[in-house]
């Protein structure tokens, strides 16, 4: 079988092996596949040493011609592999043997193998080891045939993944129930189902030297600013990291202001949200292996919007939006204001209120600031415990939590009842923020504000607020000002900032989208009967 006459050892000696190098793929990019199957088998086994999930199946592909089928168990669709590959090859072999076609035996052409016998659609051939390894890692089954220095790769992506289910982090009352999954192609398909246009582009990039994670930048050509898309691509390509396991890795490396507590990218589990954002001229970054799709550029107000805002009638939406803004204020300032007014500015409160607070605080051993910090930190701990704990233990946490932040703490004289109310209010308030990453920012900023209030009173709160405002107004997300809508002020954008105008009024896309194609609706249609003769 050594048709080229080389010894089996020679290439092994000449080539750095995977184990020796640590990083097999780059160094093997330029190494050609040998004709000798034994050499090739050795090579593969050497590269994938100690990889118990590799499957090597020797098989006769044509009478007297040895072949080797290699794949990684679990990540390939084994049924498909069985029906469309192994079965046809064996059956073909039997047929060939029965026919006793000698010429075929002597010159077994591989062409018929992929064209006639294997009925799989995604076929590639490779002559370099690098491509073979990449293919194997990307769920391909590889066939090596003795005497040929060309490998055939059949993509049979499969294996068990989660099916499309309702997104857990972004629940809605009204709206689609499907959510992204961990599979990139399922996710892009979910988006493609929504936007059936060739203008919906999906540019692919592979990131992570080890993980080789597929990343797709998606946008609508003509709606997204082309400069911004180029910038995004450049930022993504600049990433050099061993692995991308979640879109969060990418987020931290491409955002404009890495040291800002404010999120500069939105993430979503909902295809409808992603589609809506693309239609407003934004881009989406899909990362294989996570249901969270990154969306940029974002504004503060966008993070205050839930997808349902656009599905429910605008009266309700506006009401809820205002409640949300009110509660963001509460979540950020209420504990700080309480501390400032009770420790510095008692004269600012109504007399009866100040007396009842004083009555409740009478036996409390801590200053208001310490009391507030104790409560807020225990609340955060409680929340964190609730997220991490298995669901079966969750109930225990809520019972204990109710004791810690509740009547028991008040009766023990450790915290005052008004403080329990303040902390509970803040907790509820922070949960009304639709985007979790913004909610966590607000929670975080509450602590410096509380300390400022405890040290400097209202003056401290004002300082903190000024700092936050200054910071937020100079923030950008992919060049778009974070406060777009009010700073810089733009009338059209304001139809979707503090109010949500009815759909028939929102005729234009946001100002940061591509300048060419801004019109959303050609004509204002609001159901006013055109003719009275209809009924």
């Amino acid at each position, binding site marked *: 079988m050594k048709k080229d006459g080389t010894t089996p050892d020679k290439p092994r000696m000449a080539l750095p092996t995977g184990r020796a190098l640590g990083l097999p793929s780059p160094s093997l990019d330029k190494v050609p596949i040998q004709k000798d199957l034994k050499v090739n088998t050795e090579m593969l086994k050497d590269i994938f040493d100690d990889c118990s999930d590799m499957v090597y199946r020797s098989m006769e592909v044509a009478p007297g011609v040895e072949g080797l089928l290699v794949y990684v168990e679990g990540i390939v669709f084994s049924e498909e592999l069985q029906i469309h590959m192994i079965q046809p090859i064996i059956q073909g072999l039997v047929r060939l043997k029965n026919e006793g076609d000698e010429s075929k035996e002597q010159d077994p052409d591989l062409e018929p193998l992929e064209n006639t016998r294997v009925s799989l659609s995604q076929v590639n051939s490779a002559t370099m080891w690098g491509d073979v390894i990449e293919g194997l890692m990307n769920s391909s089954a590889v066939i090596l045939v003795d005497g040929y220095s060309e490998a055939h790769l059949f993509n049979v992506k499969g294996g068990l993944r989660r099916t499309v289910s309702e997104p857990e982090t972004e629940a809605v009352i009204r709206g689609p129930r499907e959510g992204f999954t961990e599979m990139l192609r399922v996710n892009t398909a979910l988006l493609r189902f929504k936007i059936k246009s060739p203008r919906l582009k999906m540019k692919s990039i592979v990131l992570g030297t080890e993980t080789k994670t597929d990343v797709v930048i998606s946008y609508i050509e003509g709606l997204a600013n082309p400069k911004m898309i180029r910038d995004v691509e450049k930022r993504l390509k600049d990433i050099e990291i061993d692995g991308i396991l979640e879109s969060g890795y990418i987020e931290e490396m491409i955002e404009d202001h890495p040291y800002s507590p404010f999120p500069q990218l939105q993430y979503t589990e909902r295809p409808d949200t992603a589609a809506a954002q693309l239609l407003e001229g934004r881009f989406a970054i899909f990362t294989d292996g996570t249901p969270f799709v990154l969306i940029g550029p974002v504004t503060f107000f966008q993070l205050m919007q839930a997808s349902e805002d656009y599905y429910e009638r605008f009266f309700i939406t506006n009401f809820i939006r205002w409640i949300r803004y009110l509660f963001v204020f509460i979540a950020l300032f209420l504990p700080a204001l309480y501390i400032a007014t009770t420790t510095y500015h008692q004269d600012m409160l109504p007399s009866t209120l100040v007396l009842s607070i004083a009555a409740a605080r009478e036996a409390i051993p801590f200053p208001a600031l310490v009391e507030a910090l104790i409560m807020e930190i225990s609340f955060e701990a409680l929340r964190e415990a609730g997220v991490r704990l298995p669901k079966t233990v969750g109930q225990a946490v809520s019972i204990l939590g109710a004791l810690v932040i509740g009547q028991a703490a008040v009766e023990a004289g450790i915290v005052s009842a008004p403080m329990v109310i303040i902390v509970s209010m803040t907790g509820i308030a922070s949960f009304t923020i639709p985007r979790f990453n913004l909610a966590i920012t607000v929670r975080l900023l509450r602590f410096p504000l509380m300390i400022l209030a405890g040290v400097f*009173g209202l003056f401290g709160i004002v300082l903190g607020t000024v700092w936050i405002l200054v910071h937020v107004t100079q923030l950008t997300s992919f060049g778009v000002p974070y406060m777009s809508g009010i700073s810089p002020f733009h009338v059209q954008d304001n139809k979707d900032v503090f109010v949500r105008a009815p759909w028939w009024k929102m005729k234009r896309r946001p100002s940061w989208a591509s300048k060419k194609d801004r019109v959303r609706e050609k004509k204002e249609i609001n159901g006013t009967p055109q003719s009275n003769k209809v009924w």
Partner: protein
Amino acid sequence: MVPRNQTRCGDMDMIKKWAVAGLLLLSPLALAGCWDRKEINDVAFVIGSSVDKENGMYRSALQIALPGNLGGAGSKGGGGGTSGGKSYYLESKTGITLRSANMEIQAGNSRNLSFSHRRVLLIGEDFARDGIAPMLDQFARIPQNRLSSLVAVTSGSAYKILDAAAPMEQFSSEMIRELINEFTKRPDSLKQLVNTLMTDGVDVALPYLSIQEAVPPGVGTSKNNIQVTGLALFDEDKFVGALEGQEGKIINLAMNQAPSPDIIVDGPGGKGHISIRFSENEAKLKPVVRGNDITMTIEIYAKGAVYENDSNSIISDEHSLRDLERRASEEIVDKVQLAMRSLQHKYNSDILGFGRTIYEHDPKAWQRFKGNWKKVYPEVRVIVKPELHIENIGAVGKPFGRKEIRND
């Protein structure tokens, strides 16, 4: 991580900028700080205070809330519940000024006195007789001493009223505040009091408080409560007397200060009484100046309803209603004239602001009277012109529960 050029360029400039901005921001921090911190349970909230005169000194009494006795959750174990269940603590000291008297009280108090929640300021009548202007300064000088406290004059010593029982409220101050609010449409706060003091042609009138028996003597334990019994009249800043009873109430109406006064009219034929409540009322002054002759018309417009009729006559028909209105008008005219007589001649106190009205209508004429207004004021001729409308006689037309009904 790959540093991006566009954000990293000019690092030094940015650092400088931030350093300068940071320093600028930090500098005012020295102005405030935790040394100003006053925890809410280190503060003694003064909810009411009184001023009296004693041997030429000020006697100040402060009513201090005791949060420990207010019944807040978790306050059972704590607090300085010294006065046996009372929700306040009354302390009184003397001093050569009001401030020094208050500081004497502070000296005996573990908590910091805070005057920002003072609901009422009571002035004893003896003190008021000598003039209230000297003590007013400290209220405005320190903004913490709220100018929105309500002011009243008490019959007898003011601190006695502060300590009187107010079973409905936690504090007598709170009760007094509510009483004053009920008595006048626009209660006189310290600020308004000073305003009136400073205005030419009008004298101060404050609610006049006294302690009244709540039950007839000899029934169980005697009970007292605080009541607004009239109007305390001032000449300039000196208390000159009180207009009590019906006179005080009717002058309140003429001053356009009565929220909804009741007028009691004799029943037809002089039998029984009918009370009418004027829930909507307005009083206006119209001066006519001819030379040195001043005529002041007090126009009283009021809408009301019959609330009680203990006579046995029907008042539901047009004729008797008009008759009732006429008699109510006469009643008002009589009472106002009577009260005006004592205001003009007995007390010489222009609490209705005749002078101010003349100034508003005819500033030139006012210049003539300004110098000797106190002499001119008693000579002003007063005409009372009521315009009353009784719009409702209640749910029953005929007197309720009467066998014999008069219809005339």
